């Protein structure tokens, strides 16, 4: 159940640099930087309280999980990064791991694996942005000042949380009225993830954003990207001749504004919007985009993301076996067809330790079920899209088809 409830979930943010950097220097700087933040060595505490909380040590233990790899063949880089993304944390007190990779062509990567309880995707990028500031300040004034190291527990106002829980419950019941299309989760305890990265250059990205404006409207990139992904997933189900059902996408949304994130960097501030599409309308892009926009509007108007955020605090006091009963019972073992996240802004400076940053992308381990996720981010005028899937959920040929479908549809080649 840990994978489903996010309690055991992790992700990885990768920075690709145009030149090599010294692993020993990087490790030294990271060690000093991390020592400013005892929160990263925290653990779940409960003591005599009914609700668990984040228990922080008085000072950092100075432990840094850092590994350095050399990649003689450029083609092996993705495999190395995928292995890093699948490496579990050593114990319950470890929530960050750093991997450095130098390639034969003198490029380098910094991959930071992070526990989703400590950081979410934007928080992780901002944390690395703070590391850049720390390097710039030459280890000067404490870089941690101004960052909220211990957020309020938010475990007061119980009635408000129970009412939010009731609203979420009603939403789940409404969504579960229609049979849900989802890929069957493979048996077995091995839970490794496979990844594919689709990179769009600046010209292609501009084309995608123009398509988004023309099809979905001003500042409506997310609904447009979701519609394209839904159509590509539909193609996969069509090929499998899978049983009929509607698609349900769980889309993560950051509840912080770009101003809030400067202080609320740690812990998870993500909530969800849910988008349902009956298979009959998925092939009609215009109708699909309209449906997604209206669902987004209605959910924000009725406060769904806020209710989910509030109600999720209740999950802290519920045992994992309770969630298993809900998922196996009313939800019939299915939560969503896939998960989608889009990070539209990036807080990173152009260089890290003197090396120009060429690219940034995320490699999340998606909750299981559904075990299938799409993560897009915008960096330096370019769009990246990562497919993340539980090994065994799809065959390599199916991932190839999905990758091609996504690329063609994003660029409008599917007409």
């Amino acid at each position: 159940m840990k994978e489903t409830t996010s309690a055991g979930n992790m992700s990885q943010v990768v920075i690709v640099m145009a030149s090599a950097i010294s692993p020993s220097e990087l490790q030294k700087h990271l060690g000093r930087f991390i020592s400013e933040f005892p929160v990263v060595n925290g653990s779940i505490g409960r003591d005599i309280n009914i609700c668990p909380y984040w228990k922080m040590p008085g000072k950092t233990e100075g432990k840094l999980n850092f590994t350095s790899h050399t990649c003689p063949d450029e083609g092996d880089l993705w495999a190395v990064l995928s292995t890093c993304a699948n490496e579990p944390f050593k114990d319950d007190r470890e929530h960050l791991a750093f991997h450095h990779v130098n390639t034969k062509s003198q490029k380098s990567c910094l991959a930071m694996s992070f526990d989703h309880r400590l950081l979410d995707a934007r928080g992780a990028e901002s944390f690395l942005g703070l590391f850049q500031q720390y390097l710039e300040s030459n280890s000067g004034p404490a870089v941690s000042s101004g960052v909220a190291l211990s957020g309020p527990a938010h475990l007061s106002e119980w009635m408000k949380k129970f009412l939010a829980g009731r609203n979420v419950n009603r939403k789940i019941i409404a969504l579960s009225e229609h049979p849900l299309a989802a890929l069957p989760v493979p048996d077995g305890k091995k839970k490794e993830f496979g990844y594919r990265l689709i990179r769009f250059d600046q010209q292609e990205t501009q084309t995608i954003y123009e398509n988004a404006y023309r099809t979905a409207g001003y500042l409506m990139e997310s609904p447009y990207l979701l519609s394209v992904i839904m159509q590509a997933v539909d193609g996969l189900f069509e090929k499998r001749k899978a049983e009929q059902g509607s698609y349900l996408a769980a889309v993560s949304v950051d509840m912080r504004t770009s101003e809030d994130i400067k202080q609320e960097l740690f812990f998870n501030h993500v909530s969800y919007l849910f988008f349902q599409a009956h298979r009959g309308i998925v092939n009609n892009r215009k109708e699909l985009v309209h449906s997604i926009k209206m669902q987004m509007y209605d959910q924000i108007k009725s406060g769904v993301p806020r209710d989910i955020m509030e109600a999720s605090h209740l999950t802290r006091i519920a045992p994992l076996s309770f969630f298993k009963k809900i998922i196996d019972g009313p939800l019939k073992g299915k939560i969503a067809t896939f998960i989608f996240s889009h990070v539209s802004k990036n807080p990173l400076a152009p260089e890290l330790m003197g090396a120009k940053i060429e690219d940034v992308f995320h490699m999340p381990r998606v909750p299981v079920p559904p075990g299938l996720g799409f993560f897009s981010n915008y960096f330096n005028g370019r769009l990246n899209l990562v497919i993340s899937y539980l090994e065994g959920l799809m065959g390599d040929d199916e991932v190839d088809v999905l990758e091609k479908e996504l690329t063609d549809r994003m660029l409008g080649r599917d007409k």
Partner: protein
Amino acid sequence: MTLQDIQNTLVQGIASITSKDQASVSVDVPFHELGIDSLGFVEILVFIEKTFKLQLIESGLDKKDFATIHSLASFLHKKL
């Protein structure tokens, strides 16, 4: 409502949605330069519906209507 009243109300709402001081919300800057994404944009549309009783999500608005807070206020002023 005067154009100025509408503009002031929009600034208040957008400052609240973006967690910015009202003084730092310029009425002459495009929305995407205010750090607003799809989610924030829909929140603004919901704010407009709740405040001015106008639903704009499918009203055929384009970039020029949202060029700035000032141009949006002018658009709303004509509609009200």
